[in-house]
């Protein structure tokens, strides 16, 4: 608790300066080695991924050969169907319909979820009042509301958007509210000590601190939106990719069915990747922290 030595209280100069810059040559060598290591890693990962994809494909062939076309379509048939559906515009039209419902529902859910989440997270009193209702809504499966939504809004695009909005809003809301109400207390006190007004405290400390949490809410919301869209398309007026899916399934056209499934997979993957990218950009400081750079 006390230091025994008594050096003079002078300023030790070395601590005041940044580390001396590396010479160009050694810095370049270091960077090259790091690049090489990263490259080797990515090559390995992509290689294994390709191998798994090939194994899956081989599995499809095997299943098709042993169990027949109904259990598993021939991969070439799936490819042919895909080409046909893309070239005659069926797939594009369906994708357009699906994307309309999905994006409208998701944007609506994001706007209302973030807005309400900020309110409920920021105003503790309101948060406490609405907590049980939000929880009840969040823990009810979105599909449970479909009959009611059909009665209220009909069977077409607007009703499907409502289904998606209803399913995706609550995870976004809950994540936003949690992010705000769990904002770092130390930083809040710091800002208060420097005389931050309530508005400043909110917009300059609590909301930025909650941003990673809001973004993971959006990511969950997007996944839920995709599911909600397909369910709405299956159960309400058949349309979009979901509609194609059930039509093909009902007629046991498994090659057609698989062609649609592949598009849905790609769509879901793309959306998640986009949101993860946004998340990384916004919370880059947090990630580098986790990397332990």
């Amino acid at each position, binding site marked *: *608790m006390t230091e025994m030595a008594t050096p003079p*209280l002078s300023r*030790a100069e070395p601590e005041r300066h940044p580390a001396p810059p590396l010479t160009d040559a050694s810095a370049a060598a270091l960077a090259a080695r790091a690049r090489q290591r990263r490259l080797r890693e990515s090559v390995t990962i992509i290689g294994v991924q390709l191998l798994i994809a090939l194994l899956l494909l081989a599995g499809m062939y095997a299943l098709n050969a042993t169990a027949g076309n109904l259990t598993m379509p021939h991969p070439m048939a799936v490819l042919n169907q895909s080409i046909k559906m893309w070239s005659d515009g069926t797939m594009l039209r369906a994708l357009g319909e699906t994307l309309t419902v999905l994006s409208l529902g998701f944007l609506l859910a994001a706007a209302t979820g973030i807005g309400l989440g900020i309110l409920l997270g920021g105003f503790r009193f309101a948060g406490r009042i609405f907590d049980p209702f939000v929880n009840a809504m969040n823990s009810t499966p979105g599909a449970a509301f479909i009959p009611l939504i059909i009665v209220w809004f009909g069977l077409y695009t607007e009703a499907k958007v409502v289904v998606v909005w209803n399913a995706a809003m609550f995870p976004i809301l809950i994540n936003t509210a949690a992010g705000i109400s769990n904002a770092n207390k130390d930083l809040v*006190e710091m800002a208060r*000590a420097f005389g931050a007004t309530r508005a400043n405290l909110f917009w300059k400390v609590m909301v930025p*601190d909650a941003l990673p949490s809001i973004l993971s809410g959006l990511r969950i919301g997007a996944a839920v939106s995709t599911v909600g869209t397909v369910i709405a398309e299956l159960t309400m007026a058949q349309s979009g990719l979901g509609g194609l899916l059930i039509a093909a399934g009902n007629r046991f056209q498994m090659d057609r069915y698989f062609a649609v499934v592949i598009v849905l997979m790609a769509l879901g993957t793309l959306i998640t990747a986009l949101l993860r990218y946004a998340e990384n950009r916004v919370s880059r400081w947090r990630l580098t922290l986790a990397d332990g750079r």
Partner: protein
Amino acid sequence: MADTEALISLRHVGKSFKDGQVRALQDISFDVHPGEFISLVGPSGCGKTTLLRLINGLIEPDEGDVRVLGKRPQPGPDLAMVFQSARLLPWRTVMGNIEFALALRGLSRKEQSQRALALLGAVGLRDFADAYPHELSGGMQQRVGLARALAVEPKVLLMDEPFAALDAMTREVLRGELLQMWSRRRMAIVFVTHDIDEAILLSQRVILLRPRPGRIDEIIDVDLPEPRWQHDPRTLPAFADMRAHLWGRIHEMARDGAELEELAAAFPDLEPAQMGRQ
């Protein structure tokens, strides 16, 4: 009623928590004059942080009166705080963190960046203006915290164990820098520490607190030659005397509280002050 020339004046200040179950502070009275450097020392839980919060105006006293510049304290331009951990906004750069405090003071963008740069120069971090806090060492982060507090040009600088989390070497360097900064600007400093040596080394007055509830045990004037970053006082007999005296008082406190300590060890979950009430 308050001394007119005092910058900060506390009169019979008391503060409780948990609806009065935890008595954090009781009957605290002292003044801090402009340009004075005082230290608050005392065992953990004796209310040092609470006292700083009261002076900053973050919380209000239950009893007595806290005045800063003759008024009830309000977080704002006259006061600035340095915390034990630097408490920097991780999503802002070093520069952005200092500008944050300056923006709260209503400075224009241009003034903000000018002054932030000047302060970074003063703490030797100009090259790190665009770095993010996690890219700095603990000592460097603490320097940014200090720069942020100094940037607002406060009349009172409140410091809550600012060097406690640092290694001995960095702490030594930063103490020297703090003393130099203080001798140039002459704001009043209220410095919380539980390091007796540090308190004597830095301050002109040491206020020793005793716990359960937090009260003033003794106020000691430190009359050592200035400036202290040039003449290290730790070799002087006066320093050793003061040190011995303060440790003596603290050991007495520990003896008085020995029974309580035993109880505290047996029931670590209980609030010390709760047991003190018996």
